[in-house]
């Protein structure tokens, strides 16, 4: 169905400078040639020849991309519904996803959220949209398989700015978001300095970037024994998450493999996870939950990586 997708604006678009989006209305701009190519490729990969209707759920800041995808999909004869979320929060986007069953659901939102089964999230950052950052799933899968082979098994020594940690891990495997590989951590000793980003599986609203407030973790036998951070709010949260709620176990290590434009995003989301970096995931051991409601607490701290594996 998507073969020979027509571009709805091809015929009527005024000429714009190459690479420069032309205004299309008060907020929506026209796509650049590269963005048009990505939009077509996204639709081919996600909608393909399923014959299914398309449901485009989008956060308010992703209206432009949703408009592009919707216009191209309709031009290709795909029944398309656009669903804006009320606010750019995970809860609002999740709410807007309700009732999308029976259609191919594409979610344009930058933050980490619960993606309904079968749906696909396209995330961007403040300076680049999901359309700009998109890459075919097949290519990312190949890159991840190659990285997993190169990383092999343990032990692994990870040097971060101001620290070094030695990890005993299981085998690395491709993970989600696409463009990442993950392994279980069996043992971890040393100092890990996260200077890139933090992500928590809770609805925190702080700036996820750590460049100005790096987090230092000291690990002994796979467990965090000390936490340090110059930001008092983050320091208190991490200290309590580790020492009271027992999210102290280095559960897994993840490598982000993608060289992407822009820096780490203030919004914790799939782009930060996939961007070149190494992430330690802290979790609560199953036999040591503090409270049933915090037993699934996970804290991901990411350090920048100069060379992707």
């Amino acid at each position, binding site marked *: 169905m998507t073969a020979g997708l027509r571009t709805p604006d091809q015929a009527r678009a005024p000429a714009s400078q190459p690479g420069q989006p032309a205004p299309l209305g008060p907020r929506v701009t026209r796509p650049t040639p590269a963005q048009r190519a990505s939009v077509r490729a996204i639709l081919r990969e996600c909608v393909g020849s399923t014959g299914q209707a398309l449901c485009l759920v989008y956060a308010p800041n992703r209206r432009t991309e949703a408009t592009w995808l919707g216009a191209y999909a309709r031009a290709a004869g795909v029944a398309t519904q656009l669903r804006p979320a009320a606010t750019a*929060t995970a809860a609002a986007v999740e709410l807007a996803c309700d009732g999308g069953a029976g259609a191919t659901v594409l979610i344009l939102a930058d933050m980490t959220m619960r993606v309904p089964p079968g749906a696909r999230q396209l995330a961007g950052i403040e300076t680049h949209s999901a359309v700009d950052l998109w890459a075919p799933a097949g290519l990312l899968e190949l890159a991840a398989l190659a990285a997993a082979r190169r990383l092999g098994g343990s032990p692994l020594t990870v040097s971060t700015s101001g620290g070094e940690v030695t990890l005993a891990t299981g085998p690395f495997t491709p993970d989600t978001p696409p463009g990442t590989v993950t392994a279980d951590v069996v043992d971890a000793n040393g100092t890990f300095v996260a200077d890139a980003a933090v992500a928590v599986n809770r609805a925190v609203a702080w700036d996820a970037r750590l460049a100005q407030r790096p987090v230092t973790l000291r690990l002994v036998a796979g467990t965090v024994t000390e936490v340090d951070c110059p930001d008092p709010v983050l320091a208190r949260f991490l200290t309590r998450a580790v020492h*009271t709620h027992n999210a102290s176990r280095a559960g897994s290590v993840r490598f982000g493999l993608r060289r992407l434009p822009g820096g780490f995003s203030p919004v914790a989301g799939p782009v930060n996870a996939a961007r070149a970096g190494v992430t330690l995931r802290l979790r609560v051991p199953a036999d040591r939950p503090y*409270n049933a409601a915090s037993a699934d607490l996970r804290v991901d701290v990411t350090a920048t990586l100069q060379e992707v594996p």
Partner: protein
Amino acid sequence: MTTLVRSRYLLVSPHAYRGPDGRAVRMAYATRRARLFTVDEDTAAALSSGDLARIDEPELTRLRSLQAVVDADEDELAGVLGGYRSGSTDPGARGFTIMPTSYCNMACDYCGQEHYKAAVDERKVERTTARVLAAIADPGTRSVSVTWFGGEPLLALRVVRQMSHAFVAAADAAGKPYSARMPTNGSLLTARTLRVLHDECRLTALEVTIDGPEKLHDQRRVKRNGIGSFHRTMAVLGQAVREGAVPRTRISIRVNVDVGNEDAVDDLLVDLACCGLSGPTVEVNLMPVHSWGNDVSAVEVEARRFAAREIDWLRRARLLGLGFAAPPKVVRRTTCRATSTYGEIIDSAGRVYSCSEHPLVPGARDTGVVATLADLAGSAPRPAGSYDDWYDQVGDARQQCGRCPLLPVCGGACPKLWREGHVPCPSMRHNWAGRLDLEAERSGLRPVEAG
């Protein structure tokens, strides 16, 4: 020609912010309309100096529609009190606070109630039910709200369910809106109880008190059997919020703050975040411990100090993803149950009060009774209580609330405490500028100093 002046009920932030378009603005709060809005720097300066001629016509029209500027000869206090009087004498909005039990399974130091065990008296339950049903059936009634109060209302869950079934069915049959809320210590909550309250009792708001991290909470909120309730309450609420099990019930986490736990509020906020108590249906509500007629002067946090610390707590709560109430967006219609004879409190013995801080409180539990259920015919409003003349007192300056710019959204907070010589002002009286800063941050504005 009409002369316009700045409303006495307008607050303009002392701080400037920058919006996405780079323009410098100030937050403003017009309490007569309960509206938050922004004004540009020139308008803010004109409002501050009183030189409204500097404001252009379209902006002046907007400010007038918000009652941020008013006619110079308008008696604004009279207008505000007129609104309260009309809201308080409106027979269409009926409010009942029902105490299904006089007992509580906790014995908190700062509580002013004296609890006692008593068997459920089915006749009294029937009379209470009949009283509310009569109000629902009254053709003059437009809506009914019920607050389940205690003691600990969940100790009488069976009674709450029984009455709720009758109220919900009658309201549905009459096509009248029905809402219910419940303050609770939370110790008896289970996933099933929450669903019952949500599905059957149509609870729209649940207020659970958590006074600190585990150790402190379990010390302060002492169950009579000595067993702590922190873990159980947090687990049940956290699970329910994350599963979206009670989507139509707003959950408020009330923290009673005094000198004994003020330094632990930050840790509690982290615990709430770690337990997943964030999201659009949850709010943190920090409240200073206040007198119920008992002496709490040794433990209460001085009002200005509380207000200053509250801004820091709320700012951290926001970063942790926790919700908290914005400045009111609705003008109050009446101050409390005690200022409208269409609102009443019914205790488990069938006594009717006008003020919720009278039942179970030594002394007031006898002197505050305005009627018994047996005295009241059908849906007739309760007799006047001690505070039904509240607006007269504010109007003739016997109480200082008439001078306060928050009067339209506060109503004077608690007439009882004013009469007893306390100052029950909400913290916003002292930290309104900080609250406006928080709202500016919430809407994506940045302080001008930050560039």
